[in-house]
């Protein structure tokens, strides 16, 4: 659990982060969104003390983050940034091994960890381990960057626009990878982005920042139903609301009893994607299949339209 307690950061007279109090529950993904200059990057950089707050405290699992030396704190917290920041003179394996090496892990343990992570990110350890970062594509470099952040098995992972430099297709893939990896390790993630699509796709909870303040903190659904300020409403995009609503939940949640014609869609697909499939194929209902392939029911156009409407 990460608790921000009345955290303020001031540079001379400019207030960058203003009296932020926020609690991040363990094993969840919290996405901080806001326009540039809203203080969101400053806020997460105060967690691993790359920036020191002017006032207020940040507690990690109940412990003030100033109670240990900076470098020790940072070794415990994963940190992934835009543009990956891989060390160009070190191989992929050495890059991933950075924090474990600093912590003095045994060589065999480091090697095993590097291989585990590369495999998890669908990079062949024998092929990619000895390569240098410049030999990799942008998407591969980004995956290595996240793998490096996870190498010392941190409970907490900070990500500052980690997918900002990727093209849309690779970005979608990277986001899905992150979700499955978060499930795999149970890591608490705080991610900063200005991309609302990304926020709604990844977040268990979203915190919206505006001019240094957190103006709303809640689940994506809460944010859609009751935006706290006009700014939040604008950020979400009024015309996008019904679609974002559908994007949060899966087709499995919208299953109705009954049968339908055609090829089934997997239950893990978002309702938005299910709607898209219905509209494009011109049908009124689609069968839904569970992970094991069994048909568990159908989703219908009418059902999805009702779900997209503003809750009363």
């Amino acid at each position: 659990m990460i608790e921000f307690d009345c955290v303020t950061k001031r540079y001379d007279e400019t207030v960058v982060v203003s009296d932020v109090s926020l609690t991040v529950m363990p094993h969840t993904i919290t996405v901080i969104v806001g326009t540039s200059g809203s203080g969101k990057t400053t806020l997460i950089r105060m967690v691993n003390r790359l920036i020191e707050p002017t006032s207020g405290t940040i507690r990690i699992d109940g412990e003030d983050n100033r109670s240990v030396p900076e470098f020790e704190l940072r070794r415990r917290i994963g940190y992934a940034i835009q543009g990956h920041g891989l060390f160009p003179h070190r191989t992929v394996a050495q890059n991933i091994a950075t924090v474990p090496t600093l912590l003095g892990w045994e060589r065999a343990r480091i090697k095993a960890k590097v291989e585990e992570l590369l495999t998890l990110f669908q990079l062949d350890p024998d092929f990619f381990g000895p390569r240098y970062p410049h030999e990799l594509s942008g998407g591969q470099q980004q995956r290595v960057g996240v793998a490096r952040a996870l190498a010392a098995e941190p409970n907490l992972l900070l990500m500052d626009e980690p997918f900002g430099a990727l093209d849309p297709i690779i970005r979608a893939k990277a986001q899905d990878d992150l979700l499955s990896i978060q499930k795999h390790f149970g890591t608490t993630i705080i991610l900063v982005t200005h991309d609302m699509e990304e926020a709604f796709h990844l977040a268990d909870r979203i915190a919206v920042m505006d001019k240094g303040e957190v103006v709303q903190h809640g689940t994506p659904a809460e944010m859609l139903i009751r935006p706290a300020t006009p700014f939040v409403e604008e950020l979400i995009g009024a015309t996008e609301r019904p679609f974002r609503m559908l994007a949060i939940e899966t087709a499995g949640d919208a299953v109705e009893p009954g049968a339908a014609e055609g090829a089934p869609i997997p239950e893990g697909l978002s309702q938005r994607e299910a709607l898209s499939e219905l509209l494009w194929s011109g049908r009124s209902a689609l069968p839904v299949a569970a992970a094991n392939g069994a048909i568990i029911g159908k989703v219908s156009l009418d059902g999805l339209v009702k779900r997209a409407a503003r809750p009363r």
Partner: protein
Amino acid sequence: MASLPTLLRLAVFLVLLAFLLQPGWFEPLLKSLVQENAPAVYNRGSLFWLTLLHLRTVFVATFAATFIAVSLAILVTREAGAEFLPLSRSLVNIGQTFPPVAVLALSVPIFGFGEKPTLIALFLYGLLPIFENALTGLTTLPPAVTEAARGAGMTERQRLVQIELPLALPVILTGIRLSVVISLATATIGSTVAAKTLGEVIIAGLQSNNLAFVLQGGLIVAALAVLIHDALQALERALSGRTRT
């Protein structure tokens, strides 16, 4: 298959080595440059030995200049040393603007004739390129990389040794290369104050009106400069190939 430039360099190296070890072989070539009865090949000492002493002087001076210049650059790029940047710059600049000949003239009364005044002149003259390049190398590192190093929990010392210096190395080497080439040529004037360098050959030629001596001294220095320059450049390329982002 080696490329043409590599073969040329190899040829220059072999000719140089042959000339230093068996200068007699080249006598017919140089004969036409001197008056009758005058020696065509330097005969007041071993050319090979002089070349080694010349290289030693340059090496010692450059090594000292590198050590001091890089240490200074590291110091002024740390948070605690930032205020010393203008002072260090001026010091190093003075070293460069002061003509080596003047340094020789001033240091002979203190240190006497011999190698010392030359070492001091070369050391001062070599500081600037190394210092400025080290400074550039250490201050233009990719921000994402230094940020990642901090975020990973490296201490300031670990960042310097494991990240900053290795990444700045190709740029620092460029400075060292410039400094070495300048020193190779400048070292010849050391012989005016009795330092054992290849300048001795040139000076002997000037004193006895022997064009062949002057040419020998000059060509050996030039060949050394070209070969060492190219070798260091190849090293830089090999290093920066790995460190580009």
